């Protein structure tokens, strides 16, 4: 993975020194809250319902053990002993004191982490395939390009005060595990002319109040032109995007209003007059960054592992976890393991400091010192030997981290909701917990197969409810919490927005209604048909009926 050199360190140190001074000015009264707010937001600091909240970037979801250990240390020393992983693959602390923030940022810098641009109307943390560098499906590892975009977009003089936030995701396979079509810009690495790296570019995706699926704007932008092309898109957006209405300020609204063809013309007009030479990544710089992401020294192993196969036979719990949470790897004898942060009745995405230490140690011993944050609010050990999986599982199991529900119905994506967030209209966590308890039976979950449930506590859609196979949106009806249900959404290469099935339900009715919809699916599915495929075949109607059936 990428390691800072003196320049990267210098940049982060400069920002910490600056923010430390701003905090000091705020505490001694030289800055008012109105003046301080945009400055703290540039450093990922929010003021939520009960306390300040700090969002720390995990660039493209990749961490080493020292970094995860440090995140645990910060949770323990400066917070209440836990952190919350987000759908942007970042981590949030819910209780830091303002006066501790400089110390926290200094500690983070020691392990090459920061909170720069984790909020505000700028280019946010770039996300990617959680199995980057491990999957056999990718054309190349997308992370060097993520790192290039990270560097280019950091403290960008022109794009730090955009109409609204701007999110970019990069993948390198046809299978989309990063939901690129829900992003302001989605990038898919393809082979261009002469086999060089090129980018299929999607633009104008986004969730929130007015959700849109991104449209293709360019089929194959050559790698060396990527930053020029992104600059052209951002320029067109910065000049033309709406600033009069916060709900209409994202690029999706601009693209929808102009139409993709007219927007493309705007981008191309900007692209033609850019000074391309300046924005071409020097070859040696590209090579330097790519070298960090060279595959780790995998051993040459047989495809099958005796210890793994024996453990599968010996322990049904291990077998179930392997079935549901282990994914195929490019190197024979290796696998990627998903660490579910969705225990029955738990808070989706929460992790204690001790658990972070445990996973850090596992990453170091068994996964070439690498661990990933997934946008589904889970962690992944990307490179584990099959031989080692039984021991990894035992350790995870001993620490409440071996819930065998990856991509199953209780692997719920949920925002913090009204329990923490000042924007929320309703709580998400208790509804997710009720669902997870009701559907805890793993035999039933496995029978259902892959189903994604997404919950958001308000229309900002941090829980991605629009693209959940089943989406749940909290709304406020005259001071009471109600929940609107959608079905048929999908975040992947067949991205689609869910359809609202009808009037919203009170909190206690949500889990039973979803269970009825799931039973309807079992009744009407064709042999081997996934939930989302059944919805696509039948439409929402059968599920609407089930959801509103008198309980």
């Amino acid at each position: 993975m990428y390691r800072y050199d003196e320049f990267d360190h210098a940049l982060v140190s400069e920002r910490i020194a600056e923010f430390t001074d701003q905090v000091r000015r705020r505490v001694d009264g030289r800055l008012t809250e109105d003046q301080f707010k945009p400055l703290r937001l540039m450093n990922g600091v929010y003021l939520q319902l009960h306390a300040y909240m700090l969002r720390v970037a995990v660039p493209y979801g990749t961490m080493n053990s020292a970094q995860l250990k440090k995140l645990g240390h910060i949770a323990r020393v400066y917070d209440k002993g836990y952190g919350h992983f987000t759908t942007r693959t970042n981590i949030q602390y819910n209780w830091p004191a303002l006066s501790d923030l400089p110390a926290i940022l200094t500690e983070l810098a020691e392990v090459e982490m920061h909170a720069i641009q984790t909020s505000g109307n700028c280019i946010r943390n770039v996300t990617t395939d959680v199995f980057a560098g491990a999957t056999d499906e990718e054309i190349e590892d997308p992370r060097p390009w993520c790192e290039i975009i990270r560097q280019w977009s950091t403290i960008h003089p022109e794009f730090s005060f955009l109409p609204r936030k701007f999110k970019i995701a990069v993948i390198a396979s046809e299978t989309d595990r990063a939901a690129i079509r829900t992003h302001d810009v989605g990038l898919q690495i393809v082979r261009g002319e002469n086999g060089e790296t090129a980018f299929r570019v999607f633009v104008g995706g986004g969730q929130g109040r007015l959700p849109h699926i991104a449209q293709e704007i360019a089929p194959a932008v050559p790698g060396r032109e990527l930053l020029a092309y992104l600059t052209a898109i951002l320029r067109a957006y910065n000049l033309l995007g709406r600033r009069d209405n916060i709900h209409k300020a994202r690029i999706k609204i601009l693209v929808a209003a102009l139409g993709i063809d007219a927007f493309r013309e705007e981008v191309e007009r900007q692209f033609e007059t850019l000074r391309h030479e300046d924005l071409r990544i020097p070859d040696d710089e590209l090579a330097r960054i790519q070298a960090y992401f060279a595959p780790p020294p995998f051993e040459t192993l047989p495809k099958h592992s005796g210890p793994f196969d024996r453990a599968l036979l010996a322990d049904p719990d291990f077998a179930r976890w392997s079935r549901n949470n282990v994914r195929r790897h490019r190197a024979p004898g290796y696998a990627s393991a998903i660490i579910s942060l969705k225990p029955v009745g738990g808070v989706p995405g929460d992790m204690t400091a001790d658990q972070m230490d445990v996973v850090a140690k596992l990453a170091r011993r068994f996964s070439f010192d690498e661990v990933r944050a997934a946008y589904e609010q889970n962690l992944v050990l990307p490179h584990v030997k099959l031989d080692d999986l039984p021991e990894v599982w035992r350790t995870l199991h001993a620490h409440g981290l071996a819930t065998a529900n990856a991509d199953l119905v209780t692997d719920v994506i949920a925002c913090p909701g009204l329990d923490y967030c000042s924007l929320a209209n309703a709580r998400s966590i208790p509804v997710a917990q009720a669902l997870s308890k009701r559907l805890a039976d793993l035999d039933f979950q496995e029978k259902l197969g892959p189903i994604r449930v997404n919950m958001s506590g308000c229309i900002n859609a941090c829980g991605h409810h629009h693209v959940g196979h089943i989406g749940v949106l909290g709304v406020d009806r005259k001071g009471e919490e109600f929940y609107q249900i959608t079905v048929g959404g999908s975040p992947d290469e067949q991205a689609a927005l869910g359809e609202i099935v009808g009037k919203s339900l009170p909190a206690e009715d949500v889990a039973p209604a979803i269970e009825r919809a799931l039973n309807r699916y079992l009744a009407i599915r064709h042999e081997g048909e996934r939930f989302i495929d059944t919805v696509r075949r039948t439409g929402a109607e059968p599920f609407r009926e089930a959801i509103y059936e008198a309980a």
Partner: protein
Amino acid sequence: MRLLDPLPETDEPDGAIPGDTPLAEVEAAAVGANRLTIRFGAFRDGRGFSLASILRERGYGGELIAAGDLLPDQARHLKRSGFDAVRLNAGADPAEWRAMLAVIDTVYQPASDVAVPVWHRRAAVETLEQKAARLDARYRDADPETVLAAAHREFPGRIAQLSSFGAEAAVSLHLLAQVDPATPVLFLDTGQHFLQTLSYRDKLTARLGLTNVKIVLPDAAERAGEDPKNDMWRSDPDACCDLRKVRPLGRAAAAYDALITGRKRYQATTRERLAVFEVLDGQVRVNPLANLDADEVEARFDDHDLPAHPLADQATLRSVAGPAPARCGRARMPARAAGPAPTRWSAAFT
């Protein structure tokens, strides 16, 4: 970037172009102009940054002034987007603006100012000797953790540790595991190690969580050609050393810009002024333990409960160059210890 005094209050239009003016109109106004003022309607409204950047890229050479609702914290954005000056508002504190402008920023991306992006600074030439001297000056009194962390920062992905897993290697390797356990560790397997050393190597690797120990072997063809009877250690120890140590390690180490050693100042008189960063044969040697004394090394064994080498109590292993390959090492060690300087590779080992 210059700071301009606030304009006197007046109802007269000041000729500034509002930041929400369409690009085409701004460009038209720029034709033939030698001064343009762009007024930001709100500090959150960043259109002015793009307008300025585009004008500069398209060749506007006149003066460019920013006015309106701006924060001192945006000074860098204005400067980098091609503004020459900012018109302060009444009541603004010029000291805050001056402070922000005095900051020298590290910048990643090219823009419309003179700042050199990191991408180009990285490629700027600094000789290895200059770099080592700079780092040694900065870190010569630092503790081992700081030295090693700096080394990883300065040579990311291009750094490896040399280790023979000898008597004191645990200290050095433990330190490495704390900083980055994925760092390559080059272990020279001459085929003549004590078995205890090999099992100690595996034990220590697992215990410390090192994930990238690379075993360096002599070239089989060379060995068959030059030492077919496997007795060169007796007949020509220097040639044996060259065949089994110098050449294989040279090949393995060529992939790195910097090599970490476990050398310490106290180990021999010739090492009294051992630098923490130095250049040897075209590569940087990092000696993070240089400043430790024997007691501190012992303390680290105790503090971290590090396993001792199974042969550690044998005098041979505690000698100057550490455990060299079993046979030739024992044969040659006394002479080495008395000699003027260790050879390049044994010097690197502990």
